[in-house]
């Protein structure tokens, strides 16, 4: 038999990127079970589609784009569900936006940053996470969010300003001048 059936380049893609995509989704969903489901779905979709990917494609950015799209669809579904539940019931807990709880951080300062990040508008939060946590370049982030690299950069800078302002009145960041 001259040919080995079943040697699959996709295995290398999973090995190289699953950990990071899972971390990314865990961070943006702030719920481990959502991260498990969405990362699994990300790679199952990628598996079906990766044959059509040009050899020159940035696989990592492509995976981030799939994961981000799935997450955004997921939130839309969540919002719809929450609204439906809230309309059907006067029980406040049903309308409780469940995320971003569960991010009990070991370090207090970074926990504060996490809290401020969680309050950011969606696009800024995603752009910030991809840039500052996963260090994707702006072009890739732009493709993921269906905007230009420049817009992606603007989202990240907006996020940085808001985070800095959010931390402004907290004592964790040393300042030169008293205010």
């Amino acid at each position, binding site marked *: 038999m001259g040919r080995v059936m079943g040697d699959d380049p996709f295995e290398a893609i*999973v090995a190289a990127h699953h950990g990071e995509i899972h971390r990314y989704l865990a961070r943006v969903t702030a719920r481990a079970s959502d991260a*498990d489901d969405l990362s699994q779905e990300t790679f199952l979709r990628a598996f079906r589609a990766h044959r059509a990917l040009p050899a020159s494609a940035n696989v990592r950015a492509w995976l981030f784009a799939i994961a981000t799209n799935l997450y955004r669809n997921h939130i839309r579904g969540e919002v719809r569900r929450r609204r439906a539940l809230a309309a059907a019931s006067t029980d406040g807990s049903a309308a409780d936006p469940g995320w971003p709880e569960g*991010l009990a951080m070991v370090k207090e300062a970074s926990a504060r940053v996490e809290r401020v990040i969680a309050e950011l508008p969606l696009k800024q939060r995603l752009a910030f996470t991809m840039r500052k946590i996963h260090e994707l370049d702006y072009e890739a982030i732009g493709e993921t969010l269906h905007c230009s690299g420049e817009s992606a950069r603007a989202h990240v*800078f907006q996020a940085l300003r808001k985070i800095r302002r959010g931390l402004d009145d907290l004592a964790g960041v*040393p300042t030169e001048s008293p205010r």
Partner: protein
Amino acid sequence: MSRTHSSCRDIEAELVAVGTGEAPPATVQVVEAHVAGCAPCRDELRQYRALEGLVADVRRVPLPGTDPALARAELEARLADLRRRLVTFGIFSSPLGPILIARSAEGVSMVEYLESRVAAASRLAHLVGLDAVEDEAETEGLYRDLLDYLHGRRTRLDWPIDLRLASSDFQRRVLQVTSRLPYGAVTSYAHVAREIGAPTAVRAVAQALRWNPVPIAIPCHRVIGSSGDLTGYAGNKITLKQRLLTLEGVPIAARRALQIERRAMYVRYLAEGEYCLPTCGALESTPLAQLTLFGSRARAEAAGLAPCTDCRPDLHPISA
């Protein structure tokens, strides 16, 4: 906030860029020059730099409650399942017309003569339980093998075969026996029926071969009627059967039907280790159900047979 100068507002974006380490050297210079004389902006810059440190902490701190290893294991299980079901296929032009070749992780699962691409799509839609994805690159190597075969440059397609598309164990047994028929040889449906231990199931064998999912690679074209007629092939494509057999050196004549030239072929009786002249002993009147016929001595010997020591086909070959 006391950053009220217009120069402070102008420089704000650059200041963020410098603070987070993303600014080019020229911008760094401009910002450094500004903050040297502006305490509030200096403070601002310091805070952005401190923020970078906090973000680095966020990056390092593991996320609570997540188990990527478990998630990975679950993903691998789903992928394994998907891989088992996934079939990739390509559609190619061949001397026998457009042809579809499909393979799974386990082997070649389908070779199909096509009337059109539309026919291909509808055929694939019927592959229940299988995910089918078009991928010419995955199947192109198989296509090249096939072209070599059809141009006589090779006599075997040593492909791993995936018989999950076979409809029953009976069909799988028929296909397995058929796959052992050597190049350049023919035998009858009755012989195959005998080989699988169901000597009366001749029609069922013919049906099983009619729906052979991997023709050519499983050489059902080497199985003919007991009368020597070629009978059917892949429905009504009997001329393809003729072409494939002619390629292998099997003599065929057009009489009332397309028929092999039994008198021009060497003969193996049942599973004996020798091949004979067609006139040896009672072979002329022996039913095809007990025989395998070869188009040439070379083919018989390539199948591992020795010349019969009675009729000596090596000394008295059939004259053309």
